[in-house]
C-alpha cells in the first residue's frame, strides 16, 4: 500500500518535472526541473531497495553533473541565447525517435503482461530484511565477475580526463 503511494508520488513528480524541463524557455528553470526529475528517479530506486544506485544517482548526477550544467548555464548570456532558435531542424527526427521509443516500451510491457512482477503490474516490494546487502552485493559482482569490463571503463574515463587536461592546457 505505502509502496504504491511512494511509487506513484515519485513517478508523477518525475514525469511532471520532465515535461516542465522540456517546455521551460529559461535554461536555469529547465535545469531545476531536470534536478527534480533525477531526484524523483532516485526515489524510485530507493523504493526498489537499491540503496547504492539511489545514492550514486544523487551524488553523480545531481551533485556532480548537474552542478557543472548549472555552472555552464550561468556563464552563458541567457538573454542572448533565448532569442536564438535552437535545434529546430531536428523536430522530425525527434518525433520519430520518440515514437520508436514509445513503441518499444509498449511492446515490452505488452509482451510481459502475464509475468508476475513485470509489465503493467506493479512489483510487490520485498521486505528489506530478505534482500542481501545491496552495496556489498554490487561490489562483489563488480570486483569479481566483471572486473575486466570495470577496469576497462575506468581506464577509458582516465583517458578522457587526461585528454581534457591536455586540451585545456595552454600551448606554450
Amino acid at each position, binding site marked *: 500500500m505505502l509502496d504504491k503511494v511512494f511509487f506513484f508520488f515519485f513517478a508523477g513528480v518525475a514525469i511532471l518535472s520532465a515535461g516542465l524541463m522540456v517546455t521551460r524557455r529559461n535554461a536555469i528553470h529547465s535545469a531545476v526541473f531536470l534536478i527534480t526529475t533525477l531526484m524523483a528517479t532516485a526515489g524510485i530506486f530507493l523504493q526498489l531497495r537499491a540503496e547504492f544506485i539511489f545514492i550514486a544517482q544523487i551524488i553523480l548526477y545531481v551533485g556532480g553533473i548537474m552542478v*557543472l550544467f548549472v555552472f555552464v548555464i550561468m556563464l552563458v548570456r541567457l538573454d542572448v541565447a533565448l532569442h536564438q532558435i535552437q535545434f529546430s531542424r531536428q523536430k522530425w527526427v525527434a518525433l520519430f525517435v520518440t515514437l520508436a521509443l514509445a513503441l518499444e516500451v509498449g511492446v515490452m510491457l505488452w509482451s510481459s503482461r502475464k509475468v508476475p512482477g513485470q509489465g503493467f503490474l506493479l512489483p510487490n516490494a520485498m521486505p528489506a530484511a530478505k534482500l542481501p546487502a545491496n552495496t556489498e552485493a554490487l561490489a562483489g559482482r563488480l570486483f569479481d565477475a566483471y572486473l575486466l569490463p570495470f577496469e576497462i571503463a575506468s581506464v577509458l574515463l582516465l583517458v578522457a580526463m587526461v585528454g581534457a587536461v591536455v586540451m585545456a592546457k595552454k600551448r606554450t
Partner: protein
Amino acid sequence: MHPNLHALLVFLQTWWVELVSAVVIVAVVPLITGYLVLMERKLMADMQARLGPMRVGPHGLLQPIADAVKLLIKEDIIPDNADKFVFWLAPVVSMTAALTSMGAIAFGPSFEVARDINVGLLFVIGVSSLGLFGIVLGGWASNSHYSIMGALRSTAQLVSYETAAGLALVSGLLLAGTLKIRAIVEAQQHFGVWFVFLAPVAFFIYVVASIAETNRAPFDLPEAESELVAGYMTEYSGFRWACYFLGEYANMIVVGAVATTLFLGGWLRPFPNVHWMNWLDALPALFTAAVGAYCVYRAGKQPARVQTWFMWGVALACFAVALILAVPLVVAPLKFMVPGLHGAFWFLLKISAYIYLFMWLRFTLPRYRFDQLMHLGWYILIPLAIMNVLGVGVAMILEMEYGWNRWLALVVTTAFTLAAALFLLRLNDKRVAAASSAAPPEAPSTEDSYAG
C-alpha cells in the same frame, strides 16, 4: 475500521519513533544554530580581548532569541529583476539539504532518524552536498554581480574540495569496511582505537576540506566581505537569509558529525574497552553539574535581579541534566538507558570540539586568495588524498595477506604518504617561485602572495 485509516495507524505504529526524531531535529537544530552563533561571537570576542554580546540576558545568553525574532519580523525583500521562482527556491534547498542529511546521522546509539541505511555515510555526504544548489541558484536568481561572483566561486571551491574530502573519507572507510554509520562506530569499538590514530593524514585532509566545504574562514571566499559584500547572500534579507544561515551552520554540524563518526569514535567514550577507565562514565554527569555550579556562582554577581533568576534557571536545567545522566548509572533497572544518554553526550561533545576548532581557525588565520585556494586543493590536497588511499590500501593488504601488524603497516605507509606530501609542497614552492620570477615587473607581483 476503514482500511485506509487502519493502514495509517499501522504506519504510525511502525514509524512513530523516526517521525518524532525527525521533528526533534528540525525543531532543535535552529536553536542550536542560534547558540553556535552566540558561542562564535563570544569566542571571537574573547580572542580579541573584548566582551562580545552582553546586553540581552546575562552574558548575552538571550541574544540568539532576539536575533531570531529580528530576522523573522524583518521586511522580506525580493529584488525587482530577480527571478522570483528560483529566488524563492534557493534558500529552501540549502536548508532542506542540510537538515535532511542530518537524518541519517546517529547521535548516539539510540537516536537516529533513518536507522541503519546501507549507504549511511554516502547518504550524509551526498545529500549535504546538494546544498550547493541553494548557493548557485540563489546567486544566479539575485541578478546581481556580487551574488553571481560569489556563487561561481562557491561552486568551483566546493566541487574541488569535495573530491579531497571524499578521498579522505575513503581511507577511513577502508579501515571500517562498511558504509553503515552504526557499523563504522562499532568497528572502532572492535579495534579499540579511533581511526584518527590509524589514518591521521586522512583526518587532516578531511578537516581542511570540510572547512572549505562549509565556506568558513580561511576559505570563506564565496562571501569575502571586502571583495563581494556578502557573496551569494547579498540580496537576501530576513527569513530567507536566516534559511541560508541555518543551512550553513547545520552543514557545520553535519561535517562535524561525519568526522566524529568516522575518525573520532562516534559516541564511544575515550578508551571504551579499558576497564580501569570506567570512571570516565561518571564524567558526563560531573561535567554538567560543574557547569550548573558555575552558573550558581555567577548568579550572585548579576547586575539585575531578573538576570540572577535567569542564571538560577540555567543552573537548575544543568543540574536536571546531570541528574538524568547520573541516575541510570547507579539505579540498576535504568541501566539500559546508559549507552543512549552517555553516547549522545560524548557525540555532542566531540562535535562541539570539532566546531570549536573551526571557530579557532577562523579567528586565527587570514583569508586565502582564490588562486591559492585552488592550488591548495588541486596541487596538494587531492594528490595527497590519493596517495593516502593507496597507502591505507597497501597497509590493509600487508596486514591481511602477509600477516603484518596493523600498526606497523599503517606507520610505514603513513610515513610514505608524508614523504610524498613534503615532495608536493616543495614542488609547489618551486612552481610559485618560477611563476613570480617569470611574471613581468609591471604586472602585480605574486611574491607577496603569502603576506596575507
